[in-house]
């Protein structure tokens, strides 16, 4: 690099090592038609997926399309409030913003009638007892608190049924 001769006023000054330029932008987010319908139905304590006309898989929450086949998913399928834990993790590390007491369990739950698991909390069971195949059911918040959000389900808890056959969830592990 060639030498630069600075004017006298800029000679010997401390270099600027950093500047702060705070920025914030506001957005009005749109969930989209399929997700909006899903969330409105959650507000009525209904869980509704959408079936792909090509591969027949039922997606929940639906996004209006099959990510495998790239076609619209228009047929709606009402799902049960029960499902099977396909996988889970026990959270032992506190992180900023969490309201949960550790340890707690996050699970992937394959709702009955669907082909893709949703993530939610597993409660009313010791973390050591949570396992793949365990049957669970949704515990909803009180009716006057139900809204268009998955937080309308407080958590899932074991139903006490025998474990699901591995074949019923093997495609999701």
């Amino acid at each position, binding site marked *: 690099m060639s030498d630069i001769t600075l004017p006298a006023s800029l000679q010997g000054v401390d270099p600027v090592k950093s500047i702060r330029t705070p920025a914030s*932008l506001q957005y009005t987010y749109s969930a989209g*038609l399929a997700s909006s319908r899903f969330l409105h139905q959650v507000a009525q304590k209904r869980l509704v997926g959408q079936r792909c006309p090509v591969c027949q898989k039922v997606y929940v929450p639906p996004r209006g*399309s*099959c*990510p*495998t086949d790239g076609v619209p998913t228009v047929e709606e399928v009402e799902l049960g409030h029960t499902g099977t834990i396909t996988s889970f993790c026990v959270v032992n590390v506190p992180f900023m913003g969490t309201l949960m007491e550790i340890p707690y369990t996050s699970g992937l739950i394959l709702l009955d009638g669907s082909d893709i698991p949703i993530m939610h909390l597993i409660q009313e069971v010791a973390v050591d007892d949570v396992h793949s195949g365990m049957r669970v059911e949704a515990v909803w918040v009180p009716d006057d608190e139900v809204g268009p959000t998955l937080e309308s389900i407080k958590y899932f808890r074991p139903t006490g049924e025998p474990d699901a056959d591995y074949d019923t969830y093997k495609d999701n592990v």
Partner: protein
Amino acid sequence: MREVAVISFAQSAERSIFEINEVEMLMPLMGEALAGAGISKDRVDFVCSSSSDYLAGQPFSFVMSLDAFGPWPPISESHVDMDGAWALYEAWVKIQLGKADIALVYAYGKSSLGNIRRVLTRQLDPYTLGPLWLDSVSVGALQARAGLDAGTFTAEQIAEVVATNRRNGIANPHAHLSGDDTVEALLKEPDFVAPLHKHDCAPITDGAAVMILAADDVARELSARPAWIRGLDHRIEAAALGVRDITRSVSTEQAGAKAGVADGKVDFAELHAPFAHQELILRSALGLGDDVAINPSGGALCANPMMTAGLIRIGEAATRITNGEGDRAVAHATSGPCLQQNLVCVLEGA
């Protein structure tokens, strides 16, 4: 060089399509473009998308948009955070390298989710201009003022550009702004950001576009009249506005020369000018005389989906070539403040 052609194109553009998400916006266009090419998605060798997380307000937002294509079994794909015209360029390179015979290019932008004038400040350098929040209309106004002061163009010429584009937009179903306005009436409109009137600025538009490219005999098999890409080049200038002459577009001049704009008669041109005066700068940079019809679609002044409007210029030109409305067209796309980066594409029907 392999011969590469546009064989199918689909687009949508509206003032605001708030209620649907990006995948829902793209999906019908994917189907329309594939049907237009008469192929199913398994024949597509390469997918290239373009969008901006700054528009969506969420990181890696483009990854989800692939749902609209259905990337299974796993596909070869890429993404550019630029206008879709540059995604087309990447796909064209991929085809030239022999890595694909058919490529699908898509672009989308929901400009209505955020405040676009503020969002676009983030493309300015973060040390000097960015902190001033110098918004996109003000940047355009500085350029218009510089051109008026230098005598590069007149206020009447700018109004003429607006009147012509708006009149052309009447026949375009995707134009959400159009009309039959006289130059006199336009000049009487109040200033927006002086010297710009509102009508000198492209509208805020939500939209998407999908284009299918094919090489050589594949293009001939799939299209009765492919729109052949006979010239394609893009150039970029410095980001800092103070170090270049913003009353001309050197990068467009160079890209136009490399793409061979002057090698034959130009029947019409689609120029991506988000501000009316920029069309005058571009016409001059590309050496397009008064005999060349500019923006038969109405251009970006009638509909301007971000990250997409440049690709739409190429798609509009290609569609007209395929329909036999011309034999040789120039399409142009721009990106960045004051025509910082420019792509020029020459399309031919035979």
